[in-house]
């Protein structure tokens, strides 16, 4: 998959009507996960969220818990807030969703911000594996552990893990046996080089 995977959208509102309404409006137009919460502190269940996080919440909720939310989301690279303005009057801002905004306008505003996340990540939507990632993938398919791969490539285990994460994000494949399948189908490795009975 592409770097969209690294973007999460969180909607916070006490009102189920608002939550389900925004979910319906957004789900079709986003490649990202949409998380619905009643309160900011419920984010503790999503501590592992990394990459970019867009949080939609009322200004009251932001005042109350934005600093807490920042503390919870330690793994996130960037956190951006959009304001839910649930009053009869409208605020003319690209950063605010108004009660009476049309669905298309809401999608437009949200996608504008998500697109700016992508350009911040130097538009890294390339799904081609780098040379180094291919080397790592080849070793994964031969059954080497992260530690063994690290030793052979003279890098830290941490670096290997990060390569593996990128490989999974780019290909959409997570398991070792799935990656082996991918490598064979893409002719990155030769089927005769590995023991398929063992790995698959």
């Amino acid at each position, binding site marked *: 998959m592409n770097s969209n995977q690294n973007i999460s959208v969180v909607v916070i509102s006490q009102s189920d009507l608002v939550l389900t309404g925004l*979910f319906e409006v957004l789900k079709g137009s986003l490649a990202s996960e949409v998380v619905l919460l009643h309160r900011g502190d419920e984010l503790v269940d999503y501590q592992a969220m990394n990459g970019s996080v867009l949080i939609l919440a009322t200004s009251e909720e932001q005042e109350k818990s934005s600093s807490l939310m920042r503390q919870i989301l330690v793994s996130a690279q960037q956190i951006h807030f959009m304001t839910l303005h649930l009053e009869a009057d409208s605020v003319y801002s690209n950063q605010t969703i108004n009660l009476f905004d049309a669905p298309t306008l809401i999608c437009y505003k949200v996608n504008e911000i998500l697109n700016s996340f992508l350009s911040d990540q130097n538009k890294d939507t390339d799904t081609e594996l780098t040379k180094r990632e291919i080397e790592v993938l080849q070793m994964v398919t031969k059954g080497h552990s992260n530690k063994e791969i690290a030793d052979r490539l003279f890098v830290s285990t941490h670096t290997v893990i990060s390569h593996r994460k990128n490989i999974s994000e780019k290909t*959409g494949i*997570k398991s070792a046996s*799935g990656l082996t*399948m991918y490598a*064979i*189908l893409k002719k990155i490795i030769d*089927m005769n080089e590995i023991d*398929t*009975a063992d790995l698959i």
Partner: protein
Amino acid sequence: MELFNENSKLASVIHKDHSLLPVINRLGIKLGFGDKTIRNICEEKGIDLNFFVETINVFHYEAYFPEKRLLDFSVSMVIEYLVKTHQYYKDYLIPENDRLIELFLSASPDENAENDLVRKFYAKFKEEFVIHINFEEREMFPYILELNRVIENRASREQFKLKYPEYSISSFEKEHSNMDDKMDDLTNIIIKYLPPNYDQNRGNAFLANLFLFEKDLKNHSRIEDHILIPKVKQLEKLLVSDE
């Protein structure tokens, strides 16, 4: 989105979401229910009305998850539903997948090594999956039911402790994400990376069944991870605090 309630006519529920058919079967209902409402049918068949309504809503609408209400259901009712789901996988979905993948792969113009690879990957996935559900039925569910009997004072605490000295539900928790990952990998490989010379209609038929399986499995995992396991943790706490 539309949520169903006890006054919905079951026929119109199925018109709106036919993927609920296997779900209502598992809950004990077959076709031929005329214009009856969910309430009529549940009363007639002695099915727990709330459990029926919540289960079809959870399945129908991915964002709907009334965890607090679902936690009120008895452990044995949830397990009975889960066991029926397993049965549906074993008796129908898996054999149907076997049949469709074979039709699909054997229809490729050149029966090649890549097909064989897909076949192996699927076989391995299936093997692990069957081991997983058998383990739940033979180990995890009996453990939970016994724990529940102890808490309800219908079984001996001492015997339970002898039988499960070091057991706790947290040891089961990681399993699901692994199965879900492999299922994702299989669909992704077929959608994104399969060589182009394959039989389209049979490929689509296989994938349609696989997606049905995936949807059902995700819901199944949701019920286990968000209802069953939290409930068991409550029971385990009770067991310790009662001492």
